[in-house]
């Protein structure tokens, strides 16, 4: 009997952006009975990777030279974001230079050289950004949302007048007071407690940064659940707690008969084992 799979956030992005990994994921999924992901995954993509792509696109559209964009990126204070956007721009720039080198001599002689590099890079990013959510919807059979996360999530929109892209809404309108995910944590408190207790046992020297954040955040979330006056949501300062333990949330939200398809065995395998879920890594 074929398996059912739930794709976590990085698996979705790898499928859509990494042709080589796409082949690997496809070879796993092509026999699957059911493929699914979570609205929570879409939310993670929107507030993270997609936001970063939109920033890069808008800066490119705003600039006259590629070097201006690189200069701007070098001033970003978050090192991982700076690194990711610079690497992406560098890859696109290299690709565009290679494509330009292939311009046939006949065309070059007839019409001359062209300097479309920035426009072309923007064109590549534009279609990726505007289509990302549509592609996510197409790659799965169903989209689950057991925690009612960001129910009115929307893809970014193009402001044709300005030639820019806007990634609004940034926040879920259904979470004015607090996020419904608090109820999800309450309903699944035993699973989250088990994860917290077991992860806590990992010696500190063996914990990576994400695991450290996950343990801290789970502790804080579990601490505020019994209180009806301590709100938890994206309008409160504690909103990052939820994002910091995204891997645990995704594993808990995965239906019983589904396998979490992921690219990070060191995170997902222990979490899934603790709560009796299955994990598969495609790397």
């Amino acid at each position, binding site marked *: 009997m074929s398996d059912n799979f739930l794709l976590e956030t990085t698996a979705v992005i790898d499928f859509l952006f990494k042709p080589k990994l796409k082949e690997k994921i496809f070879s796993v999924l092509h026999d699957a009975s059911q493929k699914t992901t979570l609205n929570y995954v879409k939310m*993670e993509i929107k507030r993270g990777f997609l936001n970063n792509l939109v920033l890069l696109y808008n800066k490119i559209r705003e600039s006259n030279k590629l070097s201006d964009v690189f200069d701007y990126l070098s001033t970003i204070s978050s090192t*991982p974001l700076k690194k*990711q956007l610079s690497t992406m721009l560098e*890859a696109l720039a290299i690709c565009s230079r290679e494509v330009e080198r*292939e*311009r046939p001599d006949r065309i070059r002689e007839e019409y001359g050289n062209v300097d479309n590099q920035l426009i*072309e890079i923007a064109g590549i990013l534009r*279609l990726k950004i*505007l289509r990302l959510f549509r592609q996510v919807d197409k790659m799965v059979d169903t989209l689950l949302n057991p925690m009612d996360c960001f129910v009115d999530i929307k893809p970014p929109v193009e402001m044709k007048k300005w030639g820019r892209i806007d990634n609004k809404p940034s926040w879920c309108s259904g979470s004015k007071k607090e996020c419904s995910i608090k109820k999800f944590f309450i309903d699944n408190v035993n699973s989250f407690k088990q994860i917290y207790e077991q992860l806590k046992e990992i010696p500190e020297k063996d914990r990576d940064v994400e695991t450290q954040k996950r343990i801290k955040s789970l502790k804080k979330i579990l601490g505020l659940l019994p209180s009806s006056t301590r709100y938890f949501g994206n309008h409160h300062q504690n909103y990052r707690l939820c994002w910091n333990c995204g891997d645990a949330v995704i594993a808990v939200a995965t239906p019983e008969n589904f396998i979490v398809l992921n690219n990070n065995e060191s995170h997902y395998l222990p979490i899934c084992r603790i709560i009796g879920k299955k994990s598969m890594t495609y790397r």
Partner: protein
Amino acid sequence: MPQSIDKRAKETEIILKSFDVFKESIIDAGFDFQTTFPEVPIETVKLQTRLLGTIDEYKTDVLKGKPPTEQEKLSAEKLYGVSGQVGNSGIGKIVDIINECREYLRLALENFEEEALRENQMVLLLSCIYEFDYHRMPSENLYDLIINLKYGLYNHRTRTYKEEEIQGLKQVFDLMRKTLFMSDEMLDSCLDILDKCGFELSAPFTDVDIDCNV
């Protein structure tokens, strides 16, 4: 409101707006013409009146929901002329290049089993696509689609083509020819075709290490 009726109403609104823009342009052009050549105002006014009357007739047909006959439907070629007639104009030239690309793809499909012949057509297709860069595109969506195709074809150069990839590309160029002013929906259809046939547009990101937690 059902989606199809809603879509039809939107289309009608766009067509009617276009007619209004068309009428305004004729009135403006007529005014300019009469100012520049005051000796021929009567002929100009007659022509202007006739054109405005024809547009009003079309507007009435659109409001009545009368579908155009086959003869009335305009393809890009009918509208902008075929190769050799208005080939030097911007859009006419784009139609020419699209047709040249379609021809390479047609030959590649017809001779699919003749590997060298087929692959040569695909080499020519990539060369041809560079020519789009020198002509003003009628829509941003068409321009971005062409760019993505150019990068996709370039990154495909280390592999031979599968039949479904060539078929997908042919379908996309056929759609381009029909609708140069590519709507968002049409662009989606083209990209869906490319997705379905396995033609890869993500190659520029291959070596980028994407961390979703950033």
